[in-house]
């Protein structure tokens, strides 16, 4: 079980108090300056970076203060590198042990 430090409660608490809330820093299409069409919407709702390596994630302290915050975590070792409040700049960049960083979120033709 992970031990996660909630940046609002400023305490390390067991994972069962938290829910994973997927990829962090994911702009809505209009925030990214994209037209709000089916394509961009599908990208925003369903598509994930699903990084193998160091990733920025959202978590919710569901069994505590109920606030959303962000976590920098290694998805291979599960090591939690940092946690920080929503709206703050990530203290550590994302990186991959395998796979490529893609610069775009909303492009790509369809299969």
């Amino acid at each position, binding site marked *: 079980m*992970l031990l996660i430090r909630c940046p609002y409660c400023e305490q390390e608490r067991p994972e069962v108090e938290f829910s994973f809330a997927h990829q962090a820093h994911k702009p809505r299409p209009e925030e990214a300056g994209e037209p709000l069409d089916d394509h961009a919407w599908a990208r925003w709702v*369903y598509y994930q970076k699903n990084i193998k390596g160091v990733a920025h994630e959202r978590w919710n302290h569901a069994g505590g203060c109920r606030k959303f915050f962000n976590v920098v975590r290694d*998805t291979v070792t599960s090591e939690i590198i940092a946690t920080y409040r929503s709206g703050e700049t990530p203290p550590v960049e994302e990186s991959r042990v395998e796979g490529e960083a893609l610069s775009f979120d909303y492009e790509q033709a369809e299969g």
Partner: protein
Amino acid sequence: MAVQPAKKQRFNALALFRNALSYHQNWEQQWRSPAPLDAYDVIIVGGGGHGLATAYYLAKEHGITNIAVLEKGWIGGGNTGRNTTIVRSNYLWDESAAMYEHAMKLWEGLTQELNYNVMFSQRGVLNLAHNMTDVRDTQRRVNANRLNGIDSIYLDAKGVKKVVPGIDLRGGGRYPVLGASYQPRGGTARHDAVAWGYARKCDEMGVHIIQNCKVTGFDIEGGVVKGVQTTKGRIGAKKVGLVPAGHSSVLASMAGFRLPVESHPLQALVSEPIKPTIHNVVMSNAVHAYISQSDKGELVIGAGVDQYISYGQRGSQHLAEETLVAICELFPQYKRMKMLRQWGGIVDVCPDASPILTSTPVGNMYLNCGWGTGGFKATPGSGHAFAAHIAKGEPTALTAPFALSRFETGFLIDEHGAAAVAH
């Protein structure tokens, strides 16, 4: 250089006897380990059951034998060799019912077809209902199954007890059993044998099985794939089929596109071996537990998925614990059992709990992934359907509903109810 087929000896009682005379030292190699050629007609990335089955049906049904299956570890070492081996086809929606029932029909003849004992045992599968919502959902699914010609029966609590005498219908007071869906044709199969059986037949038809060969990138020219970069060098290909399960996002990113999947650990565990006590497969979606007994006597138990993304191939302890609590409430006789082994696999889960079988934004590159927590049962059907898709270069009736485009059109195939592990 052409790819050489090589006829295999048949496995039968006579062969067993003959080989006994030489103390089983002279069985022929099941598949060869050739060095990769410069190029192939089709490269399959991922030597799990689905990848090997795809290669097999490409060779057998579409006459394409100049194929390599590239596996970064050993064949079947991914989820194929890590699952709890449950096979059933009682999914809710027409598209999934078609796919899983297609697989079920192939399972029924697979041992004979491959001349390899995949130990397919149609011992029956029950999915328990613990509350009125479960009961209504289960009855609805049973009715949908029957409309699709799938053998699905609704059992009330008494009916469950008749089929599974060891169950405590009170569920320890916590998980009362009100009923279940029952598919008599469902059951289990020997997972490793599925990989080995397909690999052996592939090798017989001249398909190259290349292990310890990791794909690290793609050669894409003008939006069309021309080859793959691997730890054994560059290999050219006219077509590439990706079947990498948990690593689907990683491979897609190398080809320049993203996927709507997340990779999570899913774990299983087995007990010490005991006498035959449970004769079918019992699953409970609501309490995250499923159980069957292997021929060796071990109870084979599946737990839930970890909530977070992980490529660590290891599940957390507290999930196993929750599952065992539920198992002990449903089967009090197992309370003193010791667990022997626990392991995890990485499953790539789609938002609608249905797989992706699709053409991709890259020309001549095809993708079969997203089977998540429940793709073992589909192995032959998935391979068969995906082979047809690759050979034709376009969707078939079976694969079309599972295209990536469903996330834009909104035609999702929501199988969270039937997929048996909530994610």
